């Protein structure tokens, strides 16, 4: 088909035209083969300009357009939508960036900026000339979700998803649902036992027919892609396969376990935060006794296994508030027990600050240390002596006697290698799973249809874990409640007649979108378009030029280079 291209050049109100002679660009490119109309506008993104371009597309029967303006980050979708409104396939639209990549970059050399703009627009025209109309890839969605991990985040996500009408399969590795929260004696800010919280959620599970809980079960295999995953689950008795449209990973954290001798750990009477919870949970009647001895003084040492120099550099967020809150409960139950809190920085952020003040008012004594001067725990028979350079006493050394030492231990990510391998979860430097964007896309991963929620994404308290679980549920629901997904068609495609089945592209693909399949008696590369991100690692490794990305074909790229290098200006 003969190309009929419209070229529209934007002044950007001076952002471009102050440095690039837009009229000269228009003149230079108007004679390019296939160009039917070439115009300039003060703002191509303005409604008036868009209406004029739409009229041109319709009246002149254009089959491709080039807009030379800003970065496609800003207006690619704007102009794709405009093309759609004009009845033109949006993938025959090419955006040329002559602002960020030309006028703004070359403010010192206007004449050269104009020459560069001409070359860039020519390349865009060359690309548009060979552009092909594309349709979004359509994927039917399975209205079911797999939630991995039945802790507080996973359970809340499951309940929310069930209420959207989706089938929810919840997989838990342990013998019971509830995660760490179930183990905790009392949780802030309500002061309720963690178990109570979990029982409420479990009751919600029982009331809903579309939640299926699999205990002592692990995920052993995953196939398929967004909208249509097949997952194999291995339970205590049997293996089974479930069909789901999306996966929510909410595997939580593993508490830091101190090394033998770290702050006296290993001696009877030195407990981690979890062990202290277990002690409180067993219930103490009458006097405060541990291992047969009466406890008069308790020392809390903060930041154990958090905020370290090399590894575990993160703050575990929940532990300051947890320790202060337990201190407060302890002071209410045993006002005569003296408390000494050895802390680095008190991070009882937000509404939890009140607990710190209340704990202070109850008479707990806070001593502040700063590495490398960390507290030293001396074990002396059944007692402990903790020495520290207290910053609040001008760095004087203070010795505190204690009967019980609680190490306020932080979070880490548990042994999850199998799950990471099966689901191809992106793992960050700290060992937690990585989101796409820490602020704007906090529960999505680089893998479409795979979401993360709760403390497996980074340290969180219960409230934050629940928020994140609900966020993941909302994102999953928004995905699956569309019965059909429309994915970006700018993905790879294999030119079957050229492919020799060497497998280079299969090895290069980071998303496992390519595989070798037998077709007409020979092995050739085959693509799952729903897994392909169109990032192109496969293209340069192919010795036969048998794979290319739609919208970035070999011929298109070659003609763009021709356009860029053309000599007469």
């Amino acid at each position, binding site marked *: 088909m003969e190309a009929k291209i419209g070229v529209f050049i934007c002044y950007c109100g001076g952002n471009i035209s102050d440095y690039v002679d837009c009229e000269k660009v228009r003149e230079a490119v108007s004679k390019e083969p296939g160009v039917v109309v070439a115009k300039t506008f003060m703002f191509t993104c303005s409604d008036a300009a868009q209406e004029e371009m739409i009229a041109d597309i319709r009246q002149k029967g254009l089959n491709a357009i080039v807009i030379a303006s800003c970065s496609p980050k800003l207006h690619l979708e704007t102009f794709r939508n405009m093309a759609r409104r004009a009845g033109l396939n949006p993938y025959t639209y090419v955006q040329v960036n002559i602002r960020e990549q030309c006028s703004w970059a070359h403010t010192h050399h206007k004449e050269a900026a104009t020459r560069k703009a001409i070359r860039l627009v020519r390349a865009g025209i060359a690309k548009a000339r060979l552009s092909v109309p594309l349709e979004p890839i359509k994927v039917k969605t399975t209205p079911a979700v797999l939630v991995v991990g039945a802790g507080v985040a996973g359970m809340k996500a499951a309940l929310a998803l069930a209420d959207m009408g989706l089938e929810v399969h919840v997989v838990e590795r342990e013998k019971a649902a509830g995660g760490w929260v179930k183990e905790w004696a009392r949780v802030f800010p309500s002061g309720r036992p963690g178990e109570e919280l979990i029982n409420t959620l479990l009751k919600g599970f029982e009331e809903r027919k579309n939640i299926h809980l699999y205990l002592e079960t692990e995920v052993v295999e995953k196939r398929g892609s967004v909208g249509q995953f097949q997952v194999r689950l291995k339970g205590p008795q049997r293996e089974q396969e479930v069909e789901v449209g999306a996966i929510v990973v909410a595997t939580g954290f593993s508490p830091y376990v101190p090394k033998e001798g770290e702050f006296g750990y290993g001696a009877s009477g030195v407990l981690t935060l979890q062990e202290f919870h277990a002690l409180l949970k067993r219930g103490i009647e009458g006097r405060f006794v541990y291992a047969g001895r009466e406890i008069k003084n308790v020392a809390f040492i903060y930041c154990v296994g958090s905020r370290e120099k090399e590894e575990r550099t993160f703050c575990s967020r929940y532990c300051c508030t947890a320790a202060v809150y337990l201190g407060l409960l302890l002071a209410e139950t045993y006002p005569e027990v003296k408390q000494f809190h050895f802390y680095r920085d008190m991070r009882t952020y937000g509404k939890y600050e009140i607990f710190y003040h209340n704990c*202070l*008012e109850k*008479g*707990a004594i806070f001593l502040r240390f700063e590495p490398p001067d960390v507290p030293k725990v001396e074990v002396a028979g059944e007692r402990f002596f903790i020495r520290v350079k207290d910053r*609040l*006493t001008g760095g*004087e050394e*203070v010795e505190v*006697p204690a009967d019980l030492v609680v190490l306020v231990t932080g979070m880490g990510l548990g042994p999850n290698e199998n799950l990471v391998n099966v689901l191809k979860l992106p793992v960050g430097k700290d060992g937690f799973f990585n989101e796409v964007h820490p602020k704007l896309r906090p529960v999505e991963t680089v893998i479409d249809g795979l979401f993360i929620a709760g403390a497996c994404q980074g340290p969180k308290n219960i409230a934050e874990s629940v928020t994140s679980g609900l966020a993941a549920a909302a994102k999953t629901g928004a995905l699956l409640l569309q019965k059909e997904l429309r994915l970006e068609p700018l993905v790879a495609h294999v030119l079957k007649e050229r492919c020799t089945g060497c497998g280079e592209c299969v090895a290069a693909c980071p998303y496992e979108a390519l595989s070798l399949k037998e077709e007409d008696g020979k092995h050739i590369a085959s693509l799952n378009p729903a897994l392909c991100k169109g990032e192109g690692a496969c293209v340069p490794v192919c010795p036969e030029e048998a794979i290319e990305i739609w919208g970035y074909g070999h011929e298109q790229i070659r003609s763009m280079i021709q356009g860029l290098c053309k000599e007469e200006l």
Partner: protein
Amino acid sequence: MIRVDERLLESLAKDKDFNAQACFNCGTCSALCPMGLGLLPRELFRYVLLGARDRLRELSDVIFSCLLCRLCEANCPRGVRITHNIRTLRSYLVKDEYRIL
């Protein structure tokens, strides 16, 4: 080195109005003290909180020099009852340390 004296802490805990622990070390009291005492209220309270009995004995001159003018107390952002606390300390020194009464 300061050795935390549990007996002193217990003795002070009996006085329900003693509230030095509310202090968060801002230093308003130190800036306002008309006596320019060698030891400032917040430092004194820190020693008391820690049960630094030896320090308390060494500092008895300072504790008895306070005018009880309450300039610091009126301006304390944490509502520490500074003069009441000083009186408690005097009473502790007289009764428990010097055994005068």
